[in-house]
């Protein structure tokens, strides 16, 4: 179980999650937990500062709507700039992962 993420990773996960369509905060956290099969146990609240940062950068936009449970919620949608950012972060992340892997399994290289 992972409790702390690398800095910036949460933003990447949110962007990735939003690729499939607009979601509200709760749904985003739900999706991340389920998809990671509960491996990533991040404090749910930390989602919100991350979302604010994404809003500020213009990578997501938000609008108020109604959830499936008839609750007033704010849903977030990816912008084209956010999509580009996601590609950049993914590429960077994969390079990082590859690098880490090579260090961790030196025998195979």
């Amino acid at each position, binding site marked *: 179980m992972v409790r702390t993420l690398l800095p910036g990773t949460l933003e990447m996960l949110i962007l990735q999650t939003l690729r499939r369509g607009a979601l509200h*905060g*709760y749904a985003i*956290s739900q999706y991340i937990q389920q998809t990671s099969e509960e491996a990533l146990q991040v*404090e*749910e*609240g*930390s989602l*919100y*500062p991350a979302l*604010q*940062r994404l809003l*500020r950068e213009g990578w997501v936009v938000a609008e108020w709507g109604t*959830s499936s*449970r008839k*609750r*007033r*919620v*704010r849903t977030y949608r990816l912008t084209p700039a956010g999509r580009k950012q996601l590609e950049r972060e993914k590429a960077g992340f994969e390079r990082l992962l590859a690098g880490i892997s090579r260090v961790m399994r030196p025998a195979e290289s």
Partner: protein
Amino acid sequence: MNPIARWLERRRVERELADEMAAHIEERIEQLVDDGLSQEEARIRAYRQFGNATLQKEKSREAWGWNGLEQLAQDVRFGCRVLAKAPAFTLTAIAVLALGIGMNTAMFSAAKALLLSALPYPEPDRLVEVWQTNKAGRFMAVSGPDFRDWRDQNRSMQYLASYYGDQASLSGDFAPRRIRMGVASIGFFESLGVPAVMGRTFSREEQRLGGTPVAILGYNLSQTIFGPGAQSIGKSVRLDGMAFTVIGIMPPGFDFPARAQLWIAQEPIPDPSTRSAHNYHVLGHLKPGTSIRQAQEDMNVIAARLAKAYIDDKDDGIKVVPLYDDVVGPLRPAFLILLSAVTLVLLIACVNISSLYLARGTVRAKELGLRAALGAGRGRLIRQLLTEAVLLAIAGGTAGLALAMAGTAVLRNSAPPNIPRLENIRVDASMLCLTAVLSIGAGLLFGALPAIAGSYTDVNEALKQGSGKGTAGPQMKRWGNALVVGQIGLAVVLLTGAALLLKSYWKLAHVDSGLRSSGVFTTDLSWPSGAGNSIDAAEVSRLSRGLLEGVSRLPGVQAAALTSTLPVRESGADGDFEIEGRPLPADPHQNPDAYYRLSSIRYFKAFGIPILQGRAFDETDDRSQEQVAIVNQSFVMEFFPNGDVIGKRIRFFGFDRKPQFMTIVGIVPDVRALGLGKPGSAEVFADLMQHTGSFLDATLVVHGPVSEQASVRSIVTSLNRDTPVEFQSMDEVIAGTIARERFQTFLLSLFAAFALLLAAVGIYGLLSYTVTRRTSELGIRMTLGAGRGDVLMLVLSEGGKLAATGLTLGLLCAFLVSRTLASLLYGVKTSDPGSFAAVALVFGIVAMLGCYIPARRASKIDPNVALRYE
């Protein structure tokens, strides 16, 4: 969205965020209840999973960059509240800062206008003043023939122009007035590179000898005599009675040389006999790429050539100096001293506030401790204290700026008229910035030290202490003492400087000038010139005689006289002469020389100067008789040490067209003719009426009541309507000659008084604070039998020790630095024991006063109250 709009929107954004988070948690609870948990368990689990909502809100806010601003706003709000709760401290600090910053801004604005800014001409770096130097290296004005040779032979100057400042009577269709004018040769305006704002400068034709008489007016003069916006080009004005046509108006602020208001063209006459008449100043405009040094070398060649060719130039050299140095140089020493003094004042002010602040900081230790206990980090505490300091500095700076504006207005209006470029003094944008930097800088300076000390507060200690008793350890105490001693020392240095200048000024102002100045008034006069700017001797004679007879007849007038130059104000001319029967030395530089002045009958009577031997001028001395002269004692001592001077004959060379021998008929005592600070030197008085062919300008001297001035004026006007009359009492004339000394003494005394006040406040503040802190200790002492006198002495001796240390250090420093004042002092040594003693005395009294008030308060302590003081 821009940051400001976002900032304004932040309340809404925060509310939405809170709603959003609440909705999230509710949704989670619902989910968990659906999963089968109880409501209570679901709530606990949901909150745990969500984490610290407040922290997340903080972090979200940080995402928008609001935190810094918000904390700043908080610090500012809190700072204002703290300062408002201690009005005595706050007002003292603001007043001290305002005065310090205000004085500095005013002085530095003046410095900028006078010293720092370049000359207001297009190529100031290429402008030079060219001087002739004598054997001793002293600068001299230049003769016409020498100037013409320089101009023809030099290779380094694009332009070389002669000029001099003069005064004249200006008349026309307006009330006649005296004006300052510049008399300029070809190349003058080209050198400076300043074009006329209306009309034009001189043409070649107008500048040649005997060219059309034309004049260029200064902007202000044109506005004054013709009215604002009036068409003045082409109008006719009369200068000393001669008609000139106005061809141009110079831009506002152009007043070279010597604050000139009008310019006329005049080429030096190419008369070889005038090579020893040093009448002109010379302005040069270097060729592009030529340095001052190259120009100097070029001029050295010319000087050597002229020295060989002409006996008059035998020992003379040429010196090229930047025009800037020439204009500003003489002012620099006094100004730098005043600037250092005012900087010291600001420094003292900062130290003063720093010590006030430090004392308060220790009193505030409890509050700071509480804040630390509630979670404020050291950084936050330092920031809080610094914010307060900067708030104070800004308030002080704003008030200081207002003071500076008032101060520069005072400087503009009260400074003596012989300081150039003074009208340029104003608090400008850059000075505004300086004020801001100074105030913030001062804030940090006096805030930083106490803030750091404050942030070391030990929470436990601070909270355990009772109120009113800080945690000032011995270190803080020593630091506070050092600050007070420092202030006292600096103030004593300033005070000593002021004492020296005051004594010097007092001596200067009380020098016996040797002539009666009270009850005497004067006016400068210019008689009209005849055809072709010549002097009509008969007309001058008629006018002078008419004036003297008319004024002497006025009932209140005891004596009226005319003189070519006014003693004390002007040295008069000096010239070489020969004594009948004594061979002239081979080297003309060894000729006897003396100052000479043309004076009418009753000149000595008007000024109350006794005739020591022989007689004064009388009615029988006129042009038909043999010329007579009166000499002063210095003259007798220098040239006739045996005293047998009456009846001897002397002849000045540069006097009249055909100089004649004058018989010495009287001896008068020396007066301070060259200025109050200068001892008399050999002087010769010639009878004005015997030389009416050699002057147009004269000064009327009247010993009589001021009520006769209107009658005198109408007599002058009836004789010549173009002659302006502007009365000045002789006392004013003499005061005017030491205006600069008075001004610098006034400023330095002002600074010193302020420094003294600050030092007194500093010592008072420290002792008051000590007494407050030691109230219970003093109470115990009194309970144990200490008398009121003992307590009084206890506190007094603490203050006295500080004052004595500061005073000793200050006097020592003053002794070391006072020699920088030497050039400003008259008749006072820089180590003058009297001044030092006076400083010690004055300072001692003020310091004792500063100590006595808190000491008295300490001795009035009621032991009962004091012991309960905790």
